[in-house]
């Protein structure tokens, strides 16, 4: 077992553990925070996988913006806890079993179906995954999706405002 493997294993355990905790946590705030931990772990993993730019984007956007938004909404709605009525009795066992199945299948695909060799780290240069490299691609080959994404973000913003706007005349002050 090399050092890399140990590092990987550690990060993996953190990621999985935090994911599981997110699922099992009764409190939504805790779930969000666990998810943040998961994101950070994965971001570190990215870093180790020669995706520096993406790792920092993940931390900035995902963990920093998206999760903050989640937290804001949770606190806005006061939705820490949800009632514990037991509806859909079979849902939980079925979901778990099926999830296991899916996992098995996916693992089967990765380990049995596809042959791959470990990637030699030496081939990749220092600039692989760096901001300039990614930026180069973004602003040349993938300029169109880049611009479309900006339009998409604009649309999402407008959508979010429209959806949460109050009805006319319901409130005295705009």
């Amino acid at each position, binding site marked *: 077992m090399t050092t890399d493997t140990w590092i990987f294993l550690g990060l993996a355990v953190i990621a999985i553990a935090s994911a599981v905790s997110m699922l099992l946590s009764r409190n939504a705030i805790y779930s969000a925070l666990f998810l943040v931990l998961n994101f950070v772990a994965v971001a570190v993993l990215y870093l180790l996988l020669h995706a520096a730019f993406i790792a920092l984007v993940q931390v900035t956007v995902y963990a920093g913006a998206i999760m903050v938004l989640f937290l804001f909404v949770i606190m806005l709605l006061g939705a820490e806890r949800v009632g514990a009525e037991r*509806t*859909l009795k079979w*849902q939980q066992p*079925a*979901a778990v079993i*099926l*999830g296991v*199945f*899916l996992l098995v*299948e996916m693992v*089967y*695909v990765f380990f049995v*179906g596809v042959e791959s060799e470990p990637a030699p780290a030496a081939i990749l240069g220092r600039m692989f995954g760096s901001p300039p490299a990614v930026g180069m691609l973004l602003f040349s080959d993938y300029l169109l999706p880049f611009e479309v994404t900006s339009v998409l973000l604009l649309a999402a913003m407008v959508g979010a405002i429209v959806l949460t706007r109050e009805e006319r005349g319901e409130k005295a002050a705009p």
Partner: protein
Amino acid sequence: MFLETEAGGGLFALAPWVIFLPVLGLLVNLAFGRRLGERFTGIVASSAIGLAFGVALTQFFALQGHPEGATVPLVDWITIGSLSVGWSLKVDTLSTTMMLMVSGVSTLIHIYAVGYMHEDVRHNDDPGRFTRFFVYFNLFVASMMVLVTGDSFLTLFVGWEGVGLCSYLLIGFWYEKGKDGIGNALAGKKAFITNRVGDFGFLIAMFLTFGAFGSLQFDEVFARAEEIGPAMGGVVTAITLFLLVGATGKSAQLPLYVWLPDAMAGPTPVSALIHAATMVTAGIYMIARTHVLFALAPASANLVAWVGGLTALFAATIAVGQYDIKKVLAYSTISQLGFMVAAVGLGAYVAGMFHLLTHAFFKALLFLSAGSVILGIEGGHHRQGHHAAHAAHGEPFDPQDMRNMGGLRERMPTTFLVYLVGALALAGIPPLAGFFSKDEILADASRVNPAIYALLTAAAFLTAFYMGRQLLMVFFGPARTEAAAKAPENPPIITFPLIALAVLAALGGLLNLPAGLPAAHGLTLWLEHTLGEVHPGEFVTLVALVSTGLALVGLAAAWLTYGRGSPALGQPDPLKRVLGPIFVALENKYWVDELYGILVVRPYTALSRFLAEVVEWRWWHDGFHDAVLARGFRGVTRWLAWGFDLPVIDGAANRLATWTQQAAGLLRRVQTGYVRNYALSVLIGLVLFLSYILFA
């Protein structure tokens, strides 16, 4: 079609017009007659027959060059299996003789009828019925032509039935009049039904003929009959016997003669044409036509002769006791028909046909003259005023009763003269026509069958007697009623045909003079072409003398009995003193009709009433029909509707709907509305799909 005849000159092709012209006449009258008046109707009807006579003449001339005759095919009528009967016209000397006689006498009678019916429809208060009479009259001539020109039993039978129908229609022409308001209709019915019995015999004969010889055409049947007939045992005898039954019906012989006297209920032209000259001769014509079969069955021929002889004498005796002028003539017709039937039964076909022709002349003459007398009496009756007439008698005035006549010799001289000619011809006084024809029959009978000869001679004596009686009662002595005293003579439209017929009655003997005289055996030679070799009638002087003598004796006896005064209404007939109860029997025609009534009519009516009321209504209709069929059917339908349709079929449909609903209800549970469930189903699909791809 009928342009394809054998090369007999195109004249033979005209033969079908002898039928089509009367049909055309009746159609024109049917369509336009009523609108265009009596004159138009009369002219159309008479011309149609007159033209038909012209066509018959052309056939006569055509036969001069081709005496063997021709067959003129018209249409293919029936073709079933081995039975192939077409409608063809057989134009030979025999049929042409009949054609000429029928159309010639019919033309004269049509002309007479125009005048007669003009009076008659006014006498009976229905002038509108004039056209109908001539439509029926033309239809009759057309049917008679079909009968005499038919080349097969079937075609002959079609005409046979047709004349029977027309007879019925014309006897019952004044259907709402007669005794009790229904008498004429009953007479028509009697004629039709009695004829039907005869027709039944004819039909059986046809079936036997077809069964034995495989065909219904005359030529084929006769040829085959001569080949295989004698070997077939009694088949030919049976056929001829049944043909005799048909002849007795149509030609009024014993025992089916009873319709003819009642048929006098029809207007006088009808009696003259149908019941004296034409329809009743159809039986004799038929026997002459099928002479081949009768030659092969001597027993039947013998029976035919006996039937004819007995009828001749029987009817003559009844004629002696009748008071109605037309009834006397009716029984006289039956008697003379007996003469003809006896002649053909004895094998003397020419003699029979000769008498048929001469009888047509003088009997038509006599009937038409009787009609003239009746018209005169009716006219006289009207002139004296109804008031006086009805005051005099409690019953209605009968213009046909001879006891109401008398002394008409001075009032109606033309009628008297022609009537005299006719009566003397009928009695057989030479040199009038009846002498030659009747004498030929007597001569042949004396040679072949003395018993028949005796019968016929006795009948001849009685013929002279009752005709003398009639002459004396009607025309001589004082007028016994006011009507007779005031009777006017009739206009020429009536008297002209009478004169024409009188000439024919006088000169008709020239047709077949006996040997030794110039133009002898004219008819014999003529008919020989069709009838095969015929023994020409010999002139037996003794027979001639005997018959003439007996005729004169008969007339003398009549003079002795009635010369001093004929009976008026209510007075007894002088003959009653002499014959006593025999005369009563003669008066009442031997009560034959009453006998038939008890023996046949009453049981038959009872049977039909029983069948109708009990069997048909009570048992079949109420019992079976209503109870079983109707109720059963209703029960079945009820079961089908309530027991079967409703639960089973409706139930199936309903159950189908319910199941659909339940299935839908079950399926509805999939739509839980929970997002998580939907997501779960997506996952299930994904897992299954992946496993299929990876592991299958």
